[in-house]
């Protein structure tokens, strides 16, 4: 009996709040961190660039959307728009602010703040508008942001093709690469930056969820009149949710453009990107941070795995159109099936599995 949940007695309230109360879990986490920081950077460039870094980006965006839609109940289809603000913000900060004052990690975080502020502006209507009607606000954000960056070529540094490739020197923050003799543009270092940001922000989100702010978010989601009667300021809570959520999405957008694709390109941030993130959220489970990551991995990897199956088992029978269509069908079926059987998504499935394992071999 290595993994024991019993015999774990909590002696004070702070211990009761821990994210990983079991000692075994703590060990797993430490091991996991060691693997993530020491082993993974040595993996192939393909693994890092085509799988791990993009998942970090979209997973972070899913966590962001989770804060807004899963925790606070404010439906949003503008995720890609906020990611776009982050990407463009990072690019322009790196481009225009003198080198000594700006570097990539800082730019990512500041552009996240820009995205957060944009989110607050489009979140203002949420004070008056409720329910499905609120979709109009985030949709307006999505289309407006896209149009805005498309119309004012200044943001793309007047690049006529509409796509800017990110200059190599933008990756070298504070000359660190030169100092350590490391290629900062290489995928291992990109990965490490993305990983650190994602881990940090996920930890932050998890804490938020369990804190007074998180409870405020959820109370606004569940019964906002009761919330206000208890002294919670519903408008302030909603706007905070928009800010934090869009901050996450903005940073995710920056990571996506800078650390994954290497381009700033409007086509990445169209409305179907918003939908994809929404699928990740629903499949992973609303309200669960770990669920968001599970959902992101599933939705991102499925087309890749499916193509791979086609290539290896059916001699490349699946072309891109087929892969896309089948993926959409699968996402649709999963969403519906999960809603019917396990509305909490993959996260809840995992919880149910654990419960079954606890009871095993008894059925219940």
């Amino acid at each position, binding site marked *: 009996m290595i993994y024991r949940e019993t015999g774990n007695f909590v002696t*004070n*309230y*702070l211990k*009761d*709040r821990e994210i990983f109360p079991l000692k075994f879990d703590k060990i797993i986490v430490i091991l996991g961190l060691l693997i993530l920081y020491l082993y993974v950077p040595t993996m192939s460039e393909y693994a890092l660039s085509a799988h791990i870094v993009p998942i970090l980006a979209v997973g972070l965006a899913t966590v962001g959307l989770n804060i807004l839609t899963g925790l606070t109940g404010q439906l949003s289809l503008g995720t890609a728009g906020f990611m776009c603000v982050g990407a463009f913000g990072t690019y322009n900060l790196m481009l225009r602010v003198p080198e000594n004052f700006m570097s990539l990690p800082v730019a990512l975080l500041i552009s996240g703040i820009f995205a957060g502020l944009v989110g607050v502006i489009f979140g203002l209507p949420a004070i008056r508008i409720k329910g499905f009607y609120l979709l109009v606000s985030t949709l307006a954000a999505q289309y407006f942001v896209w149009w805005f960056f498309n119309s004012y070529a200044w943001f793309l540094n007047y690049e006529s093709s509409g796509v800017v490739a990110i200059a190599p020197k933008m990756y070298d923050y504070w000359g660190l690469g030169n100092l350590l003799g490391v290629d900062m543009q290489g995928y291992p270092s990109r990965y490490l930056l993305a990983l650190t940001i994602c881990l940090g922000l996920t930890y*932050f*989100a998890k*804490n*938020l969820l369990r*804190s*007074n*702010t*998180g*409870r*405020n978010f*959820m*109370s606004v*989601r*569940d*019964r906002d*009149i*009761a*919330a*206000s*009667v*208890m*002294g*919670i*300021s519903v408008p302030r809570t909603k706007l*905070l949710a928009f800010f*934090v959520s869009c901050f996450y999405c903005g940073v995710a957008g920056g990571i996506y453009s800078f650390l994954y694709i290497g381009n700033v390109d409007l086509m990445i941030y169209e409305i179907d990107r918003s939908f994809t993130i929404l699928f990740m959220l629903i499949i992973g489970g609303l*309200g669960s941070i770990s669920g968001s990551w599970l959902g992101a991995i599933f939705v991102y990897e499925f087309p890749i795995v499916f193509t791979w199956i086609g290539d290896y088992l059916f001699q490349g029978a699946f072309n891109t159109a087929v892969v896309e269509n089948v993926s959409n069908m699968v996402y649709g079926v999963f969403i519906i099936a999960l809603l019917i059987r396990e509305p909490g998504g993959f996260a809840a499935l995992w919880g149910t599995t654990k419960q079954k394992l606890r009871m095993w071999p008894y059925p219940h």
Partner: protein
Amino acid sequence: MTDILKVENVTLQFGGVKAITDISFNVKEGEICAVIGPNGAGKSSMLNVINGVYLPQIGTVTYDGVARRSINPRDAAIAGMARTFQNIALFQGMTVLENIMTGRNLFMKSTWLEQGLNIGRAREEEKINRLAVEKVIKFLQIESIRKTPVAKLPYGLQKRVELGRALVAEPKILLLDEPMAGMNLEEKADMSCFILEINKEQGITTVMIEHDMGVVMDISDHVVVLDYGKKIGDGSPKEVMANQDVIDAYLGVSH
């Protein structure tokens, strides 16, 4: 004893329907005041007016010495009003502990940044407020269900949790909307004990809407009777029960 709450000439209208017509009554500090009356008499609406959820067209509510036409529900909470709802307004997505913790939100001063980083003030506040919440949990005897999602609880227990959520805010005045609705005899006895103890031990003024006459007679100090939006009785329980108008209203004599 001073009047902590004074309702003066309140009239509340929804379109053409007058929910409350020219009602006035006073609540003394520290008393248990029961608001009774047949269904549709305007009792919940009255509570909603006091609490700021509804805005009356005419009249003032004087609370704690300050007279107002209307109050923002949030300001009411800050001023020390706490309440429960007729149809249980618990947060279905959270556990019992989390629900009751939300009742402490006015005591939590740390910023979201501190809470996200789980440092300093945020940690301390979680500890301190958890202590306050645990006291109430112990008082209401719901320790065993503290980690249960409220959606899974039976009705009677949910009502108890809701009382806990209101209590934990350390209010000056507790507004309870049918706290015993749907309970059996045993649950009602428990609930009455809790309400009495809260009132006697902590001196919290309680205004409660209640249908069970036995409970009303047993635990309230002051009874206000409403019918069709008007006040038809106001006094001690004995006085009110002897009032012919009240008897008529309950027996359904047309008027």
